[in-house]
């Protein structure tokens, strides 16, 4: 910071920073306070989510012993992993092609891949349901995974595209000069450089799928009740600290995943994000 202390400019800048600082502080309170309250009341002894009556872990026991939630969790995890794998694979390949190859309709494909981002999800879900019934497809895992891939593929593509376009082509040329064939170059040079972006895309896609309600509503079939769908029917029976406990466990699981799986890649990811 080189602004000269004492000048009117310095004062003004402090004001600008000050305002943005205050807004930021309040925003983070707004974003995080509800979550803190939510987690706090997961430990409530009573059945209320408003009045504190004592400390207890019984709601956590209840969640962990709830077969319906565990079944739904299994479905959600499977759909999240499968759809994230598919959308990352398809998106990454397309992203590499878009940045590295020239072909007719490149801009169109790039725009089309981003389209689901601005198509209202409900229209996409309805269209898919109408189409599946038109084509006589039984609703189930396959339809739901396809639906979730559509929701996440714009993000997967955009993330990998950003990384691919910032790669230095000289590295690949050097590898080729050293006698590596195309596949070797891709596997040993290009892919490792793209890996942080691909992982980011995977995690984000899985998160989006895990949280999805709208698309799931339209594409679920026999036995494919995901966690959000199950939570929706739990809400009907009343908001109890059991829901809070479930939320607290979700935060815990996410932090753990972030620390375990991402420990190695997080610094790299953040670096690419900051570029």
């Amino acid at each position, binding site marked *: 910071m*080189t*602004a000269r202390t004492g000048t009117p*400019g310095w004062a*003004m*800048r402090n004001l*600008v*920073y000050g*305002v*943005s*600082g205050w807004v*930021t502080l309040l*925003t*983070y309170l707004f*974003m995080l306070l*509800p*979550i803190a*309250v*939510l987690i706090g009341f997961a430990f409530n002894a009573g059945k209320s989510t*408003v009045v504190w009556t004592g400390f207890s872990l019984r709601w956590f026991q209840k969640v962990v012993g709830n077969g319906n939630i565990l079944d739904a969790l299994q479905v959600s995890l499977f759909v999240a992993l499968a759809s994230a794998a598919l959308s990352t*694979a*398809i*998106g990454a*390949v*397309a992203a*590499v*092609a878009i940045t590295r*190859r020239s*072909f007719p309709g490149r801009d169109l494909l790039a725009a*089309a*891949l981003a389209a689901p*981002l*601005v*198509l*209202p999800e*409900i*229209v*996409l879900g*309805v*269209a*898919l349901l*109408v*189409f599946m019934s*038109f084509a006589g497809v039984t609703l189930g895992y396959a339809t739901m995974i*396809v639906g979730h891939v*559509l929701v996440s*593929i714009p993000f997967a593509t955009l993330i990998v595209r950003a990384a691919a376009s910032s790669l230095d082509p000289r590295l690949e040329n050097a590898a080729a000069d050293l006698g590596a064939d195309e596949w070797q170059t891709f596997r040993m040079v290009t892919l490792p450089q793209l890996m942080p972006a691909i992982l980011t895309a995977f995690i984000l896609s899985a998160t989006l799928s895990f*949280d999805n*309600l709208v698309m799931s509503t339209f594409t679920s079939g026999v036995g494919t009740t995901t966690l*959000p769908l199950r*939570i*929706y029917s739990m*809400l009907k029976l009343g*908001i109890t600290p059991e*829901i809070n406990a479930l*939320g607290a466990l*979700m*935060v815990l699981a*996410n932090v753990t995943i972030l620390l375990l799986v991402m420990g190695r890649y997080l610094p790299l990811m*953040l670096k690419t994000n*900051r570029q």
Partner: protein
Amino acid sequence: MQRARREQLQTGLMLAPSVLLLGLFVLVPLCVVFAYSFALRDPYGAVLPGFTLDNYKELIQGVYLQIFLNSFSLAAMTTGLCLLIGYPVAYYIAFKAGRAAPALLLLLLIPFWINFLIRISAWVVLLGRGGLINQGLLASGLTQLPIGMLGTVGATLVGMVYAFLPVTVFPIYAALTPLDRRLLEAGADLGAGPGETFWRITLPLSLPGVLAAALFVFVPSMGVFAIPVLLGGGKEIILGNLIVQLFLEFRNIPAGSAVSILLLVFSGFGILLYMRALRRVEAMK
């Protein structure tokens, strides 16, 4: 020659999955919806073949206009609020937070690690008459009686901003970070006041991010349906609710398709406006 052909084949193979996916599961379904929007139906909800413009004509009635108006005003208010709050936050993270920036960005995402419905239900509890906000207001003596906040437009807006704020901050942050701080300071050194620097350099240069944020908030917020129901009491329905109602409650697939197509056209307009504005902004540089 052979190499070129091989490369072509490779490119084709790389593109096949995404083209297939988009064609089969986005383009074709949207075409079916488009065709259905001109179809007839029987009283039990089956779609009958035929061609009619009635599904669209019905939408010009006053009732539907009111719902379109509701959707637009809710989306506009959400976008405005998100930009108003999101810009300073992105500005702070980009220029002031320093090494805390990555952590701040991650923190912003924490609510999204919890299921959407649980997040909304946390607000249902907070905004309730017995909730913490009312407890605080009563304890501080600001009010004598609890205030009914659930079932108001304000509650809907709180839920909408909560849902869309991160989507706003990220594109603006991404547009602000590459701005060279030295450039901004040079402006200041040349005698431009900080206000002037902000209005003449920072803001114009970050406009593409602001526009992207506006697009990412405005379009999806017209299709939202759970927030207006759970926080706003379901009194002001928007296009998302209308589509759910037509498809699920009334089983009127042709009318639901027509509204979907209309929402699609609105989104298309939004994207066009975005691209025009973006071009103008870039021409300004």
